[in-house]
C-alpha cells in the first residue's frame, strides 16, 4: 500500500490541480487522434464559416480575402431567394413534423398492444427506413412520373386525371413532405416503442385496481411516461427537417420555380455552385442561431419534468 501511494513521482501538478502521470499520458494519447481530426474537420469548419461570413471570400480565390463587415448579412436580409428558401423550409417543417410524429406515435401506441400480426406490422412500417434517402428519392421520382408512373396509373383507374406531382410548383413540396414522412416514420415508431416498453406494467395494474379507465390510464400514465422520449424525438426530428436537402437535390433540384429550394440546399448552392463562400457562411451563421434558439427553447419547454 505504502509503495503505491507514497512516491510523489506518479503525481504531478498542473495549474493547481493534481493529476496522475500515467493516466495523463494514456489519456492524451487516447484522445489525441480524435482531438486532431475534430479540430480540423469539426471545429475549423465552424471557425472558417464564422469568420468568412464577414468577408468576400470566393472559392476560386481563397488566398485574397477582404473584410466585408456586415455586408453579407445585409445582403442576406434583402435576398428574396433566401426568404423564399426560408419559407419553403418552414412549410416543410410545419407539415412534416406533425405528420411524421403523429404517424410514428400512433403506430407505436397501437403496436404496443397485443394485436395480431404485431411483428409483421412492425417490420412493414419499418421497411421504408431501410431505403437510403437517395434510394427513396429515386424510387418516388419514378413512381410519381407524370407520364408513366405507377401512382398516376393507379389514380387513372379511379378516373383521376394525371397529376404533375414534382413538376408542379404547388404539389412538389407536399410530395417531398409525404415521401419524407413515409421514409422516416418507422424509425421514430421504434424509438417510441422502446419508450413505451420501459413503462412498468405494475403502474397499469395498480391504476386498474383503483378503477381507472383506459383513457385515464393513457393520459395519466402513458403520456407522462413517454414525454422525455417525445421531446427527444420532437427536437431531433425538427432539426432534421430544418436541414432538408437530399430529397429536393435529387428529385427537383430545388424547382420547379424554386418551390422546393430549402435553406440547407441554398447554403450549399451559394457556396459550391456559385462559389460564394462568404455569403454561404453568413447565411449558415444566421441559420445556426435560428435553429439553436428553437432547439434550446424546445428542450427547455419539454424538459420541465427533469
Amino acid at each position, binding site marked *: 500500500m505504502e509503495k503505491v501511494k507514497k512516491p510523489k513521482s506518479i503525481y504531478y501538478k498542473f495549474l493547481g490541480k493534481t493529476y496522475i502521470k500515467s493516466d*495523463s499520458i*494514456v489519456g492524451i494519447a487516447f*484522445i489525441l487522434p*480524435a482531438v486532431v481530426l475534430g479540430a480540423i474537420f469539426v471545429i475549423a469548419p465552424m471557425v472558417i464559416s464564422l469568420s468568412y461570413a464577414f468577408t468576400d471570400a470566393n472559392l476560386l480565390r481563397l488566398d485574397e480575402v477582404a473584410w466585408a463587415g456586415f455586408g453579407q448579412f445585409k445582403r442576406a436580409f434583402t435576398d428574396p431567394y433566401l426568404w423564399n428558401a426560408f419559407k419553403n423550409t418552414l412549410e416543410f417543417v410545419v407539415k412534416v413534423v406533425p405528420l411524421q410524429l403523429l404517424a410514428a406515435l400512433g403506430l407505436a401506441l397501437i403496436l404496443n398492444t397485443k394485436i395480431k400480426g404485431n411483428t409483421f406490422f412492425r417490420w412493414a412500417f419499418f421497411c421504408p427506413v431501410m431505403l437510403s434517402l437517395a434510394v427513396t428519392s429515386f424510387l418516388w421520382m419514378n413512381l410519381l412520373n407524370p407520364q408513366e408512373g405507377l401512382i398516376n396509373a393507379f389514380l387513372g383507374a379511379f378516373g383521376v386525371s394525371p397529376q404533375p406531382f414534382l413538376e408542379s410548383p404547388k404539389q412538389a413540396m407536399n410530395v417531398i413532405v409525404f415521401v419524407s414522412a413515409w421514409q422516416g416514420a418507422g424509425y421514430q415508431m421504434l424509438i417510441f416503442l422502446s419508450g413505451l416498453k420501459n413503462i412498468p406494467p405494475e403502474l397499469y395494474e395498480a391504476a386498474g385496481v383503483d378503477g381507472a379507465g383506459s383513457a385515464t390510464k393513457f393520459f395519466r400514465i402513458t403520456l407522462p411516461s413517454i414525454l422525455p422520449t417525445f421531446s427527444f424525438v420532437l427536437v431531433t426530428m425538427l432539426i432534421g427537417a430544418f436541414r432538408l436537402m437530399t430529397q429536393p437535390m435529387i428529385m427537383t433540384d430545388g424547382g420547379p420555380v424554386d418551390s422546393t429550394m430549402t435553406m440547407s440546399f441554398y447554403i450549399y448552392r451559394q457556396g459550391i455552385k456559385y462559389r460564394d463562400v462568404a455569403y454561404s457562411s453568413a447565411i449558415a451563421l444566421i441559420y445556426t442561431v435560428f435553429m439553436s434558439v428553437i432547439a434550446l427553447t424546445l*428542450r427547455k419547454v419539454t424538459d420541465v419534468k427533469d
Partner: protein
Amino acid sequence: MDYSHTLPNFVKVKRKISPAGVTLKTAAIIGLALLCVLFLFPVVWMVVSSFKTQDQIYTQLSSWRTFLPATWDVSKWFVSYKNLFNAFDYFGRSIINSAIYCTVTIVGVLLLNSFAGYALARLEFPGSKTIGTIVLLLIIVPVETSIVPMYVILKKLGLLEQSVRVVGYLLPGFVSAFYIFMFRQFFVGMPRELEEAARIDGSSRISTYFKIIMPLSKAIFATVAIFTFMGAWNEYVFAQLMFSKQSEMPLQVFLQLVNSFNPKDLSMVMAALTFSTIPIAIVYIFCQRYIIEGVSFSGLK
C-alpha cells in the same frame, strides 16, 4: 341482476373493456392493414419491377399484376441485374468502392471514438473536462455545418487533388461527437472493479483496455459499427460533391447515373435501387438487437 358492484374492481374493469375493445381492435387491424399497404407497396414494386423487363413493367402498370413477377421462372428474374453490370463498366466497381469506404470508415470510427470515449470516462488529464464539455456542446447545439466550409478546408489541405480525394472524403467521417459520447456513457456505466483488478495484477492501462474493456464492450462497438455502416453506405450529398470520376463513385452516387441514363431502362433503375438496399436490409434483419439498443440509447438522451 347487476352484480358488478359486488365484484372486485379488476373484474369489472375486464368486463367493461371487452365489447368496445373488440370493435376497436378490429378497426385498428383494418386501419393497420391499409397503412401497411401504403408503407409497403413502393418497396414491393421496386423489388418486383427489378425482376421484369421494362416492357413488362409498362404493360402491367395499370393492373394488379404490377406487384407480381411477370414470370415464376426465377432464372429470368435477374436479367436486368446482369444488364446493369454490362451497361455500366463501373457499376461493379462502385459496389467495391462503397464496401471499401464503409470498411475504412467503420474501423476509423470505432478506434478513434472509443479511445476518446474511454479517455473521457476514466482518465483525468489537463483539458479532459474542457474536451468533455465541447463534445456535449457539439451534440446539443445544432450547428448548420454545411459542406461548404468543409470543402474549403479540404481545398486548403490539398485533399481535393484527384490522387488523394478519397482520403479527403474519408477522414472527416472518422470523428463524431455523438459516438464519443455514446462510448463515454457506456464506459462510465462499466464497473470500475473489473479494470482495477487487472491493474492490480500489473496490467498497464493500454493492455487493460484491449484485454478487458474492449471484449466486455462488444455491444456498444457493434451498435456504433452498425450505425456507422448505415451512415457510410447511405451517404449521398458529400459523396456526390467529392466524386465525379465514375471509377471512384460509391453506389449511392452511381444511382444517379443509372437513373438519368439515356435511353432509360426502368427495370435497370429498380435493380440498382434494390441492389443498393440489400446490404442495409441484411444488417437490419440480422442485427436487430443492436439497432434497438442503439435506438433506445438515443431515445434516452
